[in-house]
């Protein structure tokens, strides 16, 4: 009996040793692989995404992204960029309008100072635009400015229709992080923020079941929920104020191995 116990102990100790060694070698290999990924990402960052790439998109599917309630959607007759899981940077300007799946009529190209901006003037309703392509785990940053008060700006991601999406929103002096599932809104986290009068960056990250909202790079909200299917990115502004947007950047987040 005593001999058997010794054998079992030696066996378990050997198993532990083998496990520890396999963890070590796996870690080294992953570190090497991760380094290569990181290098690849640097090439993508800040890169203008070419328009009109492969990937046809049925128009009726795009029509589902009707976030502006009670308004007709001016569907743009544009090619689908097919940016599934790819990094892109959108800068306001005529050329960049082709990267949009659609936008409502109350969004116009304007200038703020010397810069081209996209001006959202919902006039009591909603002004919305969606970008082409679908993203899974993603970090999205929009550079925005509240031109006139009384406007709520929502940065959407994982949008698969008007009733299913996730968002980070600036509503007055509050940042809300949440999701809409089958038309029902669920707030994951909400915090008071001091919203700048000038340009600021609004960022949302979706990494698995972790969702975070940032203002000017500082984390404000952090919530947890089930992972949603990949979806489109977009911006929705509601209220009586006006909001201008000059830049939107999307970065797919590295999957863990």
């Amino acid at each position, binding site marked *: 009996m005593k001999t058997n*116990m*010794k054998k*079992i*102990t030696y066996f*378990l*100790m050997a*198993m*532990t040793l083998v*496990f*520890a060694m396999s*963890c070590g070698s*796996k*870690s080294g290999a*992953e*570190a090497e692989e*991760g*380094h290569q990924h*990181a290098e690849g*990402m640097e090439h993508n960052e800040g890169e203008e995404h070419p328009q009109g790439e492969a990937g046809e998109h049925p128009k009726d599917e795009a029509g589902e992204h009707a976030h502006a309630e009670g308004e007709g959607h001016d569907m743009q007759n544009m090619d689908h960029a097919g940016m599934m899981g790819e990094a892109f940077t959108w800068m306001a300007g005529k050329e960049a309008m082709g990267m949009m799946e659609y936008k409502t009529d109350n969004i116009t190209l304007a200038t703020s100072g010397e810069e081209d901006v996209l001006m959202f003037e919902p006039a009591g309703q909603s002004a919305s635009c969606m970008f082409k392509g679908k993203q899974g*785990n993603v*970090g999205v940053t929009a550079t925005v400015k509240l031109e006139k008060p009384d406007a709520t700006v929502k940065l959407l991601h994982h949008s698969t229709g008007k009733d299913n999406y996730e968002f980070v929103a600036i509503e007055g002096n509050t940042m809300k992080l949440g999701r809409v599932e089958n038309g029902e809104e669920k707030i994951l986290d909400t915090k008071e923020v001091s919203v700048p009068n000038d340009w600021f960056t609004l*960022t949302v*990250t979706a*990494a*698995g*079941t*972790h969702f*975070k909202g*940032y203002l000017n*790079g*500082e*984390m404000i909200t*952090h919530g947890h929920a089930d992972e949603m299917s990949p979806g489109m990115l977009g911006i929705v502004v509601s209220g009586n104020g006006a909001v201008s947007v000059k830049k939107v950047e999307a*970065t797919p*987040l*590295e*999957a*863990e191995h």
Partner: protein
Amino acid sequence: MELLPAWAPGVHPLIIHFPIALLSLAVGLTVVDLAYSRKWLTKATAGLYLLGSLGAIASYISGRSAADSIGLNLKAEVAIGTHSDWGLYTLLYFLAMTIIYYLVKFMLKQDKILFKVILAVLALAGFFILAQTAEYGGRLVFEYGLGVQN
């Protein structure tokens, strides 16, 4: 006088190695108990589980705080979430393991080989979860450079 050294990004990296060492040792002694059973060893193992679990609570709380205080880092975002998830699994698992160990050894006073084997298997499974958490934590520092100055 500052409690934290200037180079430390928070208390998490200062705390985290205690539960790793304490719980790893507890797992080792649980396995040793299969062949070398002594009362003092059982008491020491129980103490290690308790202290390790308390350290895991402190580590998890400080880790959440650390994760929320770092600025936007898109490259590390998924790894931070994964490390956080494994950290929570480790905490919950070893809290349960500590309760089970105390129950078996001190309340039921079971010293049969079957219970020893069950405890050893549970302990080794816990070590796997602990190792996963530690691996992702290490990657956050050495692969993504989180909390590293310059």
